[in-house]
């Protein structure tokens, strides 16, 4: 067998490479790839574009450290809620109750201080317990009873809203009365200056939370499990992830984050009003997450994108205000942004599909 047989000679001219896909790398295709591997890029680009646009339109008044930090103060509460919402959405779930959980938590904090005359730390702990408990209830119903998250949280949304109103008799707790008892509830309202920027501790809390969650999602087992469960729960199960436990923990964590939002909210608003339950915080949080590039189908998106998504809404609102636009325009543009964000998400997904 020293010489190849006659028919084998043609092998010398055949291809030796491994089978591969032919890729036409057009500019658009490259962009799609880039966006696919950097899910926070789209909202960041939109955010920067918006800031530049309003910067030109309104000049120095908009493009100042003070205005830009003010926007952060305005979005801090919704931003924190959106972070909690994001964790749930990453598991392919949704938390419609997150806004009323927050309101119930701050009503509890206020009433523990004023009605029961408890020390501030006990009150705050009680608020976190209620919020975490609300989240755990959602998690239990979703993971153990296998009910769809939309249905579960639609139910708990109503239940918690009603309990909150019955319990509180809709009495507003005034800032002066709260402050007379303790400063602790208002701690996130404290601000400090960095040059022209005015930063509240609420903003610091929001940013810290985002950095913490970013680390958790990308560098801890639990964080990667959240993505895995959201992407394909069956595969995650087969890979040895205890999906039920991950779901329970995620919903509970989202509840605790709502507790933090409650505390920050007291700092910002001063007084505590139970009728805030009707404000659509849950939808605002979902809006921020979606605009921030979190896929409602789960398992995709970056938490930092949500921070940009929250800021996009804030920047747009402030910018249009300073241009003297009617408030309706904010509502209209928010709707367009939501649809645009999901359309882009779908397009980016095609890169792998």
């Amino acid at each position: 067998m020293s010489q190849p047989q006659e028919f084998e000679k043609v092998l010398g001219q055949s291809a030796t490479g491994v089978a591969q896909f032919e890729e036409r790398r057009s500019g658009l295709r490259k962009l799609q790839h880039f966006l696919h591997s950097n899910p926070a890029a789209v909202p960041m680009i939109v955010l920067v574009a918006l800031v530049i646009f309003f910067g030109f339109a309104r000049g120095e008044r908009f493009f100042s450290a003070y205005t830009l930090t003010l926007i952060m103060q305005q979005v801090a509460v919704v931003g924190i809620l959106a972070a909690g919402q994001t964790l749930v959405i990453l598991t392919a779930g949704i938390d419609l109750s997150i806004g009323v959980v927050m309101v119930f938590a701050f009503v509890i904090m206020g009433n523990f201080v004023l009605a029961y005359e408890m020390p501030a730390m006990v009150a705050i702990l009680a608020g976190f317990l209620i919020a975490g408990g609300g989240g755990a209830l959602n998690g239990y119903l979703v993971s153990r009873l296998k009910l769809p998250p939309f249905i579960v949280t639609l139910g708990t949304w109503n239940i918690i809203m009603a309990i909150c109103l019955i319990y509180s008799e809709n009495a507003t707790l005034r800032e002066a009365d709260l402050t007379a008892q303790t400063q602790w509830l208002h701690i996130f309202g404290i601000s400090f200056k960095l040059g022209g920027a005015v930063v509240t501790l609420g903003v610091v809390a929001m940013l810290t939370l985002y950095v913490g969650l970013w680390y958790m999602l990308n560098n801890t087992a639990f964080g990667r499990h959240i993505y895995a469960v959201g992407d394909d729960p069956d595969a995650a199960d087969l890979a040895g992830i205890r999906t039920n436990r991950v779901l329970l923990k995620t919903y509970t964590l989202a509840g605790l984050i709502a507790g933090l939002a409650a505390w920050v909210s007291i700092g910002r608003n001063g007084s505590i009003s139970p009728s805030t339950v009707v404000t659509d915080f849950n939808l605002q949080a979902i809006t921020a997450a979606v605009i921030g590039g979190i896929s409602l189908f789960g398992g995709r998106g970056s938490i930092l994108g949500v921070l940009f998504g929250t800021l996009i809404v804030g920047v747009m609102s402030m910018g249009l205000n300073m241009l003297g636009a009617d408030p309706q325009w904010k509502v209209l543009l928010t709707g367009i942004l939501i649809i645009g964000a999901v359309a882009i998400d779908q397009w980016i997904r095609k890169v792998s599909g």
Partner: protein
Amino acid sequence: MKFKAKALAGAATLALLSVAPAMAQDVAACLITKTDTNPFFVKMKEGAEAKAAELGVSLKSYAGKVDGDHDSQVAAIEACIADGAKGILIAASDTKAIVDSVKKAQEAGMVVIALDTPLDPADAADATFATDNLEAGKLIGAWAAATLGAEAANAKIGFLNLTPSEPTVDVLRNQGFMMGFGIDVKDPNDIGDEDDARIVGHDVTNGNEEGGRKAMENLLQINPDINVIHTINEPAAVGAYQALKAIGKENDVLIVSVDGGCPGVASVKDGVIGATSQQYPLMMAALGVEAIKKWADTGEKPQPTPGKAFFDTGVALITDKPAEGVPSIDTAKGTELCWG
């Protein structure tokens, strides 16, 4: 407790009486409010229940889930018709759309009284018991102008309104304030068509603290020298004060508001709000229950206040810094009369 025992005893007697066929004259009435979450309507319900217990009227209360929830109100009217009630007290969420349902109730022999919010057209209801919101606005406008004195000519005024849809109370208070302050309002049914140089801008608050704070921050961005703020209600005013306090301007700005709720009056006392126009929801509800009772007994409908299209339940300016030429009462008196 005493009151409750009385009410219980009354209810028990009523129940016994209604069993007796000869006494089947039990007057049933319905109260339909916009929400169960706004303290204003919570108080209105309390006032109606107290009066109903006193007059031996059986009262059923209904409310929308949120402000603007029209469907629940229509369902409530239908339930009242099915119940055979004698009359309905309603604070309508959608003043135009509710008219058809109101007609059905009237055809069923009921008297329909609008509380707080006039229907559109106003005569679709048999009567309207409400605050004169234009007058409420005029009072705080006049107070702000008188308090500033000569400086009023150079005022920088911001408006914190209710919602993007500009409901009638919003328009009336907003335009009333301008009239009281001495601003040419152009079309009195439109917010924002004025060209007075003293107006810095308008924003919406949704009538709560968070919205008030955000809107105030936004207006301060347009012009940081704002020195007069008109707010749609007291929670919005409290939110605005938070925004001013955050930049240390809380003493440089006059904040005026409308409502007269107990937390609001306390805010006037604390100096958070300069002056507020107080309305009387308990009175609206009590008068409404009386009117239904009278209609059931005698077939007589309530009459409007002479010279007005509605029965004016009154409004009073509350401030501890009275201004010359503007009638007002102090916060001590306001606290006695306050609600919520």
